Every structure is written in C-alpha cells, then in structure tokens.
C-alpha cells in the first residue's frame, strides 16, 4: 500500500430519532491507500451508506473525522464523488449533458469539456447515445452515465453507494466487470459499499465487514485474487465463504446479545 489517501479516524454517527437517539456508526477506523479498491459490506441498516455520506461530506460525523491526504474534510467536494444507488442521473439532461454537468459547474472551458466528456462517454461505451434522454436508457445504461459523470471529474476518491443494487443479476455482473475494468485503467481510489458479499469479494482488494447497528468494523479481509476477476475464481469463492462466515457469526452474536434475559 502506498500512502493513505483517505483516513477515517474514530468516526461515529448518532441520529436524533423520534423517540430515542439511534447510534448508526461507532468508532470506525480505516485507512485507504492511494489507488486501492476497498469494498464495505454489511447487513442492511448497519450504517454503511451513512459512512459513505460522511466521507463525501454530505453528512457530518458526530464523533471523529475524515482525512484526505492528511487534511480534515469539511463538506462536499468534487474530489470525492458519489455514485448513488439509483444513479440520480438528471432527467432534464441527455447523456452528454449529464456527463458534462460537473465540468460546467467547475467552469471548465468548452473545448476541454467536450474532449473530456468524449473520452469518458467512450469509456462507458455510450458514445452511440450522446443525445439519448434518461427515460430512454435501461438501468445499466443509467449507471454507466452515473459512472462517467463521476469519473470525468477525476476525483481523488470514487465513492459508490450500492450502485447496482436495483439492477437485475445479469446487468449487475456486467456492471461489476465495467467498474473493475475502469478501475484497472484509471487506478482511481475507490470505496464501494454493498450488502452483496459476492459483489464485495469480486471487486474489493480489501473487504471491510461491518457489524449490525451500530456499525463497527468486524473484520478487514485482504483479497489478492488476480484481476480481472469473475465470481467463478476460486480465490473469490473463498473470500465469499469467509466474509459470509464473519457476517453470520456477527448476526448470531448480536441476536444473542439482544435476547431479553
């Protein structure tokens, strides 16, 4: 691992609930190296999306802090771009307009903007549909747009919040290989949140397993399976088995501890 690009220090988050406050995350410590691909997997409601929002600066942590290249992060910034679960691709813009959105906001000159959009629209293989409108796109294509829209800004860290959860199995596997290819080519530091252990194992160089609420780090598995990987790769299969074991043990343990005396 080269130097840590992203560092989470004792990050915790409490929400003021309607009746009582809930603790979503507790004491999360993580270091993510330059160019690393880290997946975060955990049961639903373990606060993994909250964790991603905190890194993105869209939510403030209650305790602890996030560092990028040694500087504390405050608020959102174009150096940490999120790909959301439903893509949040803008329906009033076409494919091209969506991909160039962030560049326009940043005030990038038109000629450079066009060159960069052109480069990334090819990268996600949508060069034949620059003027397609969002409602004409399939779920997979929408996520390609969301990916290109994020990568075109050349973020220091790419944050992915269960981006393929709403897709059918085939499209999901196809998108996983798209993400893997893009990462192999661009080497963008990536933090990928999912509830799908198989997805976490096929993509992650390291797999962070979170516990049930309040989310804490249960285990960090190193996954050195050679890339490009598929779900059939024996090392990936082994990682899936190990991650599943940890998750199961975690769920059993927390169910036992919550059982009334």
């Amino acid at each position, binding site marked *: 691992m080269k130097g840590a690009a992203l560092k989470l220090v004792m990050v915790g988050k409490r929400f003021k609930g309607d009746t009582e406050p809930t603790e979503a995350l507790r004491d999360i410590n993580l270091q993510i190296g330059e160019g690393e691909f880290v997946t975060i997997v955990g049961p639903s409601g373990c606060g993994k999306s909250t964790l991603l929002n905190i890194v993105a600066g869209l939510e403030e942590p209650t305790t602890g802090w996030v560092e990028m290249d040694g500087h504390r992060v405050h608020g959102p910034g174009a150096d940490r771009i999120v790909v959301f679960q439903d893509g949040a691709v803008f329906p009033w813009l076409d494919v091209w307009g969506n991909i160039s959105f962030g560049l326009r906001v940043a005030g990038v000159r038109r000629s450079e903007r066009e060159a960069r959009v052109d480069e990334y629209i090819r990268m996600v293989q949508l060069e034949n549909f620059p003027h*397609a409108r969002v409602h004409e796109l399939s779920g997979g294509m929408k996520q390609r747009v969301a990916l290109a829209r994020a990568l075109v800004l050349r973020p220091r860290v790419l944050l992915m919040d269960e981006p393929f959860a709403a897709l059918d199995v085939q499209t999901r596997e196809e998108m996983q290989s798209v993400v893997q290819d893009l990462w192999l080519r661009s080497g963008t530091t990536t933090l990928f949140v999912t509830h799908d252990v198989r997805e976490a194992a096929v993509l992650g160089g390291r797999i962070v397993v979170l516990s049930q609420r309040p989310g804490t780090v249960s285990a960090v598995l190193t996954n050195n399976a050679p890339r490009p990987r598929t779900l059939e790769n024996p090392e990936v299969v082994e990682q899936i088995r190990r991650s599943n074991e940890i998750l199961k043990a975690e769920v059993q343990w927390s169910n036992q501890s919550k059982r009334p005396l």
Partner: protein
Amino acid sequence: MVEPVKTPPVNRDRESGIWRNYLHLIPMVVVAVAFVGLWELVFRLQIRPPYLLPSPSTVARALYDLWISGALPRAIAATLVRLGVGFLISLVLGAILAFLSVHFTTFGKGIQPYILGLQTFPSIAWVPLTLIWFGFSETGLLFVTIVGSLFAVTASFADALRTVPPVYLKAARNMGSDGMDLILRVTVPAALPHLLTAAKVGWSFAWRSLIGAEIIFATVGLGFVLNEGAAYLLLSQVIGVMIVILVIGVVVDRGFFSRTEEWTRRRRGLIPSR
C-alpha cells in the same frame, strides 16, 4: 453489452399533409356547430324577444362592427397587456415567495396557512379596497390581477419545488453546485413540468381576476366593452365579447400552456411519445 435504445418514433403522419394535425379538433368543432344550431333554433322559436336573445348572425355582425371600428382590437390589446404585465409580476413574486417558503421551513410554516387562505379569497372582494387605494386606474387593475393570482401561483410553485427528489440535490451538491447555481441548474429544471402546471393554474386566476375588475372599473378593455353592452342593452355585443373572452382563454390554455406542458413531459418520458 449495451442494449439498444428505444428511439422515440418520428411523427410519420407529417408527409400525409398538415390536415392530419388538426383531426383531433373535429369533436370540438362539432360541438360549436351544434351549439350555434341550437341557439339559432331557439331564436327562431321566438321564445324570447330578439333584444333579449339575439341570433348568432346578429352577434357575429356586432363583433364584426366592433372589430372594424377598432374598438374590439383596442380592448383586446389593453386587456392582454394588463394580463401579461400582471401575470408576469405575479409569477416573479410567487416564485420568490415559494422559494423562500420551501427553503426556510419556519418561514414556510408561518406564511403557508395565509397563502392557502388567500388563494381561495375571491378576487372581486379586493376591488373596494383597490378603488380606495388606487382609484379607477391601470395600477388598480394590475393590483387586482396580481393579488388575484399571486397566492395560487405561490402555493402551486411551492408544491412544485417540493417534488424535486432530494437525491438530485445531493448529487449536484456533491459535484460542487450550490447556492444560485444549484437553484438554476437543478431545482428549476427538475421541477419544470410541475412549475408549468402551476403557471397554468396561476394564469387562469389572473385572467378571471382581471376580467372581473375590468367589468367593475375599467374604461378600456374587454370587461369594459362587455359592461358597456349591458348598459345599453346591446346583448349582441355582450354575447360577442363573452365569446371573445372564451376564445382567448381556450387559445392561451390549449395553444400555449398545455402544449408546453406536454412537450416538457414528453421529453422527460413522463407521458409516452406519440
């Protein structure tokens, strides 16, 4: 692999003549013709004396004369200018109020009940106060048009702004957009279909308020010509102007608002392409 896109079908009727584009108007024309026929029939039966129920041709004649004399074009122009100015002011003020009440929730909670109450307040009930404040003036007419539509515009603009999915704002903020940039680049375009519907609601409020006020205290304009006809018992003029008011309403609503609304919705895929 990348799936093929459903391309919106092109309008294949285009080459078979422009007539096809007007086919959908036939039922409307049939109703108009049937109505005029029935009117003519009732007239010929002499149920009412002609000065109380003029024939369709007398009304057409009256309209023609009003047009030739220049009274009708002047009246239409005066009314439409007032409508344009008043409605525009009401749109701008409504947009500002709506934005403030959505953005600052406490402010919104404070003014919302009053906005909703004033929306149902009859615009005619503003007239006595208006006359005392502004007299028989253009300002007075504009004032009634504005207060008659402002609250409907504000309420429906606020509803429109609340339809914007928060994830769009989140994504845009994440890409560095904020403040005015966020409003213009994301909030407004995201809410556009609903904003257009809201504007349509607002225009009908403005239109009704203005004609009402014109009948009471204008010295030029459609409402004035209508009232003048009644004063001289020229029922052909009264009915003629009523038809003009009706037609303007249909043209603005169908021809402008509904068309823009439909176009926007089709572009978003909110309604299927033709």
